[in-house]
């Protein structure tokens, strides 16, 4: 594994993360159970437990610019493996939200763009409309053809509805967005 040089540190980073995630970082033994169980670990730039260590060292910029925080899908497999009940998925949620709010460079902009397409769809219809999400995402990513055949097949099998399933009380949905800080 690569050595990580500690050049600049942010002293209150660990506290910030603990406050947002309600997770106790000091309970981590670095036993690697989370990283061993994580189905996405091989594609991450830092293993999940390494992220915890980096937070403890105050390596805020490195952590918030990592791809790990975006590749985590919150499947909670790590939580099932962890002997000390460290809520890794909640830590990852908090790190993503910090990266967005504090305008760090997003290592996986495609993943954020997908999340925003989903949230936009919920904003518009109150429910997710998969065809619209896929189309908007593909247009935003300028990648119209990679799943073109798959899309046609799904349409033929009636897996993708042309029209969305909608909530009637649109105002009610909008008010939830107003209450919650809207779209990032």
């Amino acid at each position: 594994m690569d050595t990580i040089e500690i050049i600049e540190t942010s002293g209150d980073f660990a506290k910030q993360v603990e406050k947002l995630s309600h997770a106790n970082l000091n309970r981590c033994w670095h036993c690697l159970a989370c990283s061993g169980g994580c189905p996405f670990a091989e594609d991450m730039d830092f293993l999940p437990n390494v992220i915890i260590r980096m937070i403890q060292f105050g390596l805020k910029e490195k952590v918030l610019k990592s791809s790990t925080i975006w590749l985590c899908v919150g499947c909670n497999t790590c939580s099932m493996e962890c002997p000390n009940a460290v809520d890794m998925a909640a830590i990852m949620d908090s790190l993503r939200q910090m990266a967005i709010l504090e305008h760090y460079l997003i290592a996986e902009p495609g993943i954020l763009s997908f999340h925003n397409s989903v949230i936009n769809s919920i904003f518009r219809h109150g429910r997710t409309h998969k065809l619209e999400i896929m189309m908007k995402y593909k247009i935003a990513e300028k990648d119209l053809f990679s799943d073109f055949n798959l899309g046609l097949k799904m349409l033929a099998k009636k897996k993708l509805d042309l029209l969305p399933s909608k909530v009637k009380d649109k105002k009610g949905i909008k008010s939830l967005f107003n209450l919650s800080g809207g779209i990032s």
Partner: protein
Amino acid sequence: MTLKDLSYFPGCSLATTAKENNASLKSFLAHFDITVSEIDDWNCCGSSSTHSVNKKLALSLAARNLFLAPPDKPLLIACPGCYLRLSHAKMELNDSKEKAKEYEDHFKKPFHKDIQLLHFFELLVKMNGKGLLKGLGGRLKGLKIAPYYGCMLARPPKMNKQKNHYGLIEKTMAALGGDPVQWPFLSTCCGTFLSVSKPGISEKLVNRIMQGAIKSGAECIVTACAMCHLNLEIRCRPENRLPVFHFSEVLSLALEKNASKNWFKRHLINPEPLMEKRQLILCRAPIKGE
């Protein structure tokens, strides 16, 4: 608790891409005279994307459904992802008086902290407890099944005191005459939304899972998650194709003339040759809209 009259949260997947999951679930329950009534005007539970980038919005979206659901009936939640989001919101509102108050003020309604959220697995356990599933064995006749849970039974540490139902698909399938296989990938995540934004990663995981099922000698995979079902079907390479059934479809197939042929036409990996081979094609005529 009465099981006959439940309120119901289908979720976006079951309302759209996985209509066959929705229909088969209802058809199976109707056989036991269990009626489910959809919460009026329910909205998306928030899904993975919302809690990934805006925790408050995730709580707000899930909370709206909790406030809409009739407090006096158990709420059956068909999708395991939605179940987790709604249970998490219920826990957050129960843990914080301020949060509960904020949403009570917003929705101008009281929050019913004891509202019962019912996972489909929990319902099945209760049905079995009442002896409803007795005497159904037979129709699946040795069908070799790889039970697949994906991440549906994993939950955050705060919720780890709640009941877990690992082994339920195996137990149920065996009781109905099926032959569940042992295999290593039963709780490996399918990649969920990375299937769209990082298809390479999803493809790698899905094909590992499918190959594992083939190597274990399974003839099909049975999953209780609509998202897993979709990902396994769309990211599977041709050489690793194996029919994937929704749990509810197989339950329905185990009953005499309960399943509709139309459900299986919506599958991207055609399960009909296997159904023919295993003489599971005694389906009823489709109902309008199926």
